[in-house]
């Protein structure tokens, strides 16, 4: 009890090195060389930034939405998109919002205020018709207006839903990078099956190349979300979901879990770091060189209910010092093994939980308040 209340991890210290002792490559170059493309007006980040004020000055800056710009060096929002999916989503958001504001909100707001004033109690100059309650023309207009707006939006929505379907592979002349992501409590394990490596806490991506992701959960439902790159999608035990993303320029984006899964939920964050293809392959080599082995033993630790910090403490050789964990020796089979195991029951269930099961033989006897979730308080 009381071991680690609220250790909150910064995804990766913004300017910190990769974390391996003699590492030649650092993330910082990749990340800071890229400026936020939003204009600095109303910069909510409270930091001065040497901004190349809007590389794409046209980047849509709908007043209030500016708030959702970027914070520090991490891209937080799809309104500050770092890839084609998020930028499509931003466009769709802006166009839908515009239609609604112009055709719904403004007319209602203006007319209501005007009516309220003009027909206030005691007004002398306006008509008063206490019994008038029907007008075919107004009725037709009242129905037709919303119908037209919804039809219009319906068309927009139908198109956008299909165009930006997270299951749809992204068009590209490059082959997609395969990625398998497993949700554990309270960290994501990113497996690069073709590279034979894996990581926790940082998701490295090559710029300009589509990424084809498969997701599952080894525990409860979770939802993987990297707002600046694209859609979120649930990861569920015994099931596989899919997601396609792409980063267009180097930079660091916020990644998180959006579906509450217990005490460490708010710490289940990571950085999605987009880097040039060269850097990416250097990174892969780096992980091969310095990563720790992804074997039964490390997997056992990973499947504990623990935050990333606790996991690092539990692993005998933490490897990196940047708050992330890097693995070598990841196999293609691991993902499907976890899916099957979760579906069939016990094996990959977190040991703490398995303990409960064992205690409960045959069924559900438990100690009153000691839930597994109480551990991290």
């Amino acid at each position, binding site marked *: 009890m009381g071991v680690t209340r609220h250790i909150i991890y910064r995804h990766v210290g913004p300017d910190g090195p990769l974390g391996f002792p003699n590492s030649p490559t650092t993330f910082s170059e990749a990340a800071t060389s890229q400026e936020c493309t939003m204009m600095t007006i109303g910069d909510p980040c409270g930091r001065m930034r040497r901004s190349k004020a809007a590389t794409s000055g046209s980047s849509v800056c709908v007043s209030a939405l500016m708030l959702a710009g970027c914070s520090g060096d991490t891209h937080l929002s799809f309104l500050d998109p770092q890839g084609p999916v998020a930028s499509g989503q931003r466009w769709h958001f802006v166009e839908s919002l515009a239609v609604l504001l112009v055709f719904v909100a403004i007319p209602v707001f203006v007319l209501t205020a005007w009516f309220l004033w003009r027909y*206030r109690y005691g007004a002398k100059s306006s008509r008063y018709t206490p019994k008038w309650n029907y007008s075919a023309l107004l009725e037709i207009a009242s129905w037709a207006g919303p119908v037209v707006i919804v039809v219009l939006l319906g068309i927009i929505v139908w198109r956008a839903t299909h165009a930006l379907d997270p299951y749809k592979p992204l068009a590209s002349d490059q082959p997609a990078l395969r990625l398998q992501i497993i949700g554990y409590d309270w960290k994501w394990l990113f497996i690069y099956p073709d590279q034979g490596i894996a990581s926790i806490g940082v998701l490295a991506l090559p710029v300009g190349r589509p990424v084809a992701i498969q997701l599952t959960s080894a525990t409860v439902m979770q939802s993987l979300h990297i707002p600046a790159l694209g859609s979120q999608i649930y990861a569920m035990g015994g099931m596989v979901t899919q997601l396609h993303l792409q980063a267009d320029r180097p930079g660091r984006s916020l990644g998180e879990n959006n579906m509450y899964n217990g005490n460490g939920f708010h710490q289940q964050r990571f950085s999605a770091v987009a880097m040039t293809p060269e850097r990416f392959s250097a990174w892969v080599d780096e992980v091969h060189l310095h990563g720790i082995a992804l074997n039964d033993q490390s997997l056992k630790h990973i499947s504990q209910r623990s935050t990333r910090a606790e996991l690092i403490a539990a692993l005998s050789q933490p490897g990196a010092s940047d708050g992330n964990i890097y693995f070598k020796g990841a196999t293609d089979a691991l993902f499907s093994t976890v899916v099957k195991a979760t579906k069939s029951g016990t094996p990959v269930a977190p040991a703490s939980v398995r303990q409960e099961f064992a205690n409960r033989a045959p069924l559900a006897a438990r100690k009153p308040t000691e839930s597994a979730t109480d551990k991290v308080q």
Partner: protein
Amino acid sequence: MSFAEQFQHPLGRLSLESLPFWQMLNDPTRGNVINGVIGTAAALMVVIGTLVTIAMITKYRKWSVLWSQWLTSPDHKKIGIMYVVLALVMLIRALMEALLMRAQQAFGLEGGFLSPDHFAQLFSTHGTIMIFFVAMPFLTGIINYVMPLQIGARDVSFPVLNSISFWLTAAGAALVMISLCIGKFSTGGWFGYPPYTEASFSPGVGPDYWIWALTLASLASTFSGINFAVTIYKKRAPGMKLMVMPLFTWTALCTSIIMIFAMPPLTVAMAQLALDRYLGFHFFTNELGGNMMNFANLFWLFGHPEVYILVLPSFGVYSELISTFSGKSLFGYRSMVIATMAIVALSFAVWMHHFFTMGQSANINAVFGIASMLIGIPTGVKIYDWMWTIFRGRVRFTVPMIYSIGFIYLFVLGGITGILLASPTIDYQVHNTVFLVAHFHNVAIPGALFGLLAGYHFWFPKAFGFRLNERMGKVSAFCWIFGFMLAFFPLYALGLMGLPRRSVAYTEPSYVPLEIAAFLGAILLTVALVTLVVQLWVSIKQRDKNRVFAGDPWDGRSLEWSVSAPPPEYNFAVIPVVTGRDAFTLAKEGGKAYPLPESYTDIEMPKNSVMGPVLGAIGFALAFGLVWHILWMVILFFVAAVVTMIVYGFARDTTRIVPAQQVQQEHRRWLDAVAAATGISRADEYQSANQGLAEMTIHEVPA
């Protein structure tokens, strides 16, 4: 200990560890102490509140009055009032929890003061309470009070069932309250998705509290739905055809229909989850063929229609208010009815928008997205028709009208963000962020809560015979409106900046200013609630100045205004004959508002029944036994429930007669008071001169 053994232990899972201060005493770290103190203080409030209430009742010797006049009463008006009282008490708790959450998040950069587990219990109880034990009882209470009066009935069709519904709801609320004192509540949120809420991941009592509280509430609401629908179909006064009913009654009917069809999926989902947790079934587990998506489907098959259960009655209230306070008959009655019915039908066809992100195909998502947007059509029509009602009217800016205006503006915004969320593409980004939290509060607070509060101000004089203080009402209304804006608009921005809902802490410094603004908003909302309580107190003190015994303080349009305030227990000395919409306005125009009947007859009314309190107590004890695995309690109270119902089946002598003599006396006394009162113009509505008699003037002002 095995499951079976534990069930055999006389106290089940109960132990000292279940007390809120146990952990703090045994492991006094700073965090444990802070959380322990907060938890203990909350528990103390419940205990002390209960003890003080009991002591006061004893001191003033009110037990027998309370028992015979209220607790066992089958009178729909009294049950309605008890529902509203329950809702307001629970609102106090849920709002305090919201304030605590907002405070935690305002200081939540890299930490805050609450433990994650404590925070999780807060959002779970807050959400559960607000929906099931604030909004639901509030609207059920108002329907209960108003609907029979509006249709010219003497009571609902099944008065004892009505009392049972109330008591089951109260039992559910009591279960949530006692979870503050003994054990912990669920941390799975108000929709408690498995497998997180399965025994393997949440082995404690929390989810069991949640399951049984919801089970009690859902049963109660199913019964209420049946009761209201039957009443509206069967007990209307002569001439009160369906298309003549006041709009509030229409929305009550529509809400009841939704209750009947939407509550059972919830009850079933809860039963299945209970089977998983108690008997090792695998409906929603990861393993052995379970599938949690079935839970998601069942829950939202209830959950989406539920939001229309919440807003439709308020839509009805707004229709009454806007028409009354614009001094004009409701524009587009037929459209309004059709729109409401359309919403009912559509509300069952959109549930999947709650999990666009679970990986369905684009076709399915797009279809459900567009279906969700379709609801915008009837809702839009309603907004326009309210605007046309104001158009060419004479608007009085009374307290209920201020809520209504706040509603029109804010609800349009909430609707817009709802339509945004209905687009799967946008949902992929803002689902489960605080943008979603902002959206549903944006519809729940202006849409449901404001309407109910406005209804409270509107009908309070009817129920208690005197008006509420206007000035404080206005202060409170403005605090609700601006407090809401300050508390929730920042969440839209925060959601777009990537803050997930249910985050106890965060690491982005840029969130802080917005979080602080939201915290200030929550403080303003608390001020609004406190003002309401003070207003009630002050109004009770000043009641003699503000009496409206004649019964029609607002120049009302429907039948509830045609009787005294408060109305006699049988509502109508003589059942009125209705000739058209706005029945009371028609009568006033025809000079026949207060007819003197030639003769009176005996009136048959339901007798008091102990069934409600008894079944409520049994339900509570049964649920408590189940939560704590106390076998003897479960068996005992299960048997008690069955036996009670069978025994009641033999009850024959269930009505009593109010003699014609008494009816005549009471009615004449009221008519004399009406005759003695002076009709006032609308300018004097809020003056002492308003004795509840409206000046009969209808003057059109041509262009």
